[in-house]
């Protein structure tokens, strides 16, 4: 990227990028905080593409099961939509959802400013 672009044509775009990155960073921090809050020993890390079947749901810690079940029922949802179903704070759901993504049970897809979560049934 040239000095010209940074100072002249695209400062707004760059600010947007920075903001987006900060938001992502924020989500990751939330996950880390949540992981520390709950006993993270019983949370297997980074299984890629683990199926979210009922036996898996049964063996999950309660707080994650509630989120995962709600995604299963909804099919595809944002943290906002999930938090409306569970009556828990959006930030909390966002952390749990991202944790489930890290664990490989959910997939995350960005559409514009929104992030959608879903259980991957295809792979």
């Amino acid at each position, binding site marked *: 990227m040239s000095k010209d672009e940074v100072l002249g044509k695209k400062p707004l775009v760059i600010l947007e990028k920075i903001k987006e990155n900060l938001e992502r960073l924020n989500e990751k921090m939330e996950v880390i905080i949540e992981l520390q809050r709950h006993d993270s020993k019983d949370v297997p890390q980074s299984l890629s593409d683990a*199926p979210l*079947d*009922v*036996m898996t*749901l*049964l063996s999950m810690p309660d707080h994650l*099961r509630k989120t995962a079940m709600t995604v*299963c*029922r909804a099919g595809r949802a944002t943290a906002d939509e999930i938090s409306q179903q569970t009556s828990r704070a959006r930030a909390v759901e966002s952390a749990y959802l991202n944790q489930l993504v890290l664990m490989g049970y959910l997939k995350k897809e960005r559409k514009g400013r929104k992030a959608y979560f879903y259980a991957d049934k295809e792979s």
Partner: protein
Amino acid sequence: MGKIIAVHSYKGGTGKTLLSVNLAATFAKQGKKVCLFDLDFRAPSLFAILKLENAECWFNDYLNNTCDINKVLIDASNKIPSKGKLFVGLANPATEAIRDMSAKDRKWEMRALGRLLYLRNALLNDKSFDYLVFDTSPGLQYSSINAIVAADLVAVATTGDRSDVDGTRRMLRELYNLFEKKTGIVINKVLDYNSKNRQEELYDRIKNTYQVPLLGIVPCFCDILRAEGNFIFAQDKPEHPFSKLLDEMAKKIDANEVR
């Protein structure tokens, strides 16, 4: 919107199939639009009990994603003398199909849950069914847990047998509760259920033992055994005490009194 009811139990032979069939028939008799599904893929039995002609597809095929749900449903309304509607989705009783269903992996079971959940849209929403009734296999079978997760209400059949009581309590704690499922208990095959004292004693004991809503207490009827599965009490013997009990259960569920 309509509701999905899963009929489940810890042990086998507690009366799930008898209750499923008669509950579905009772709802239909009361003018509801109902579909009864055989989710006991290990030992399919609705096929034999309802004596229906083959459908284009089995419910297995729907879960395998090789067939549309509309090709699975069989209209059995002509069996019910009322304006209600009774449809049935059958499990394939062929040995090969049973073997096939028992060898599914986690990924398949996850997709099957998705397809069960989808019935909410396809049947309750789009086709305005009032009730879907799932007859399941006993215990912690994958297909049964899928049915429980997809259901709005779990009707748990149990007998007085010690091992059954114990297992049922465990399932309430460690299965239905974890999924935050509404459950109603049916105590089946109860003996000496005539005296008022016995009824009250039983009622109290059930409340203490299970601490969940009671859907009904069903005595052991020799008439049921004598019938050898050849007719459906709710429709063929509407005046029988067993049919009357099912009327009560259906009304409780319909009035949302199972809490």
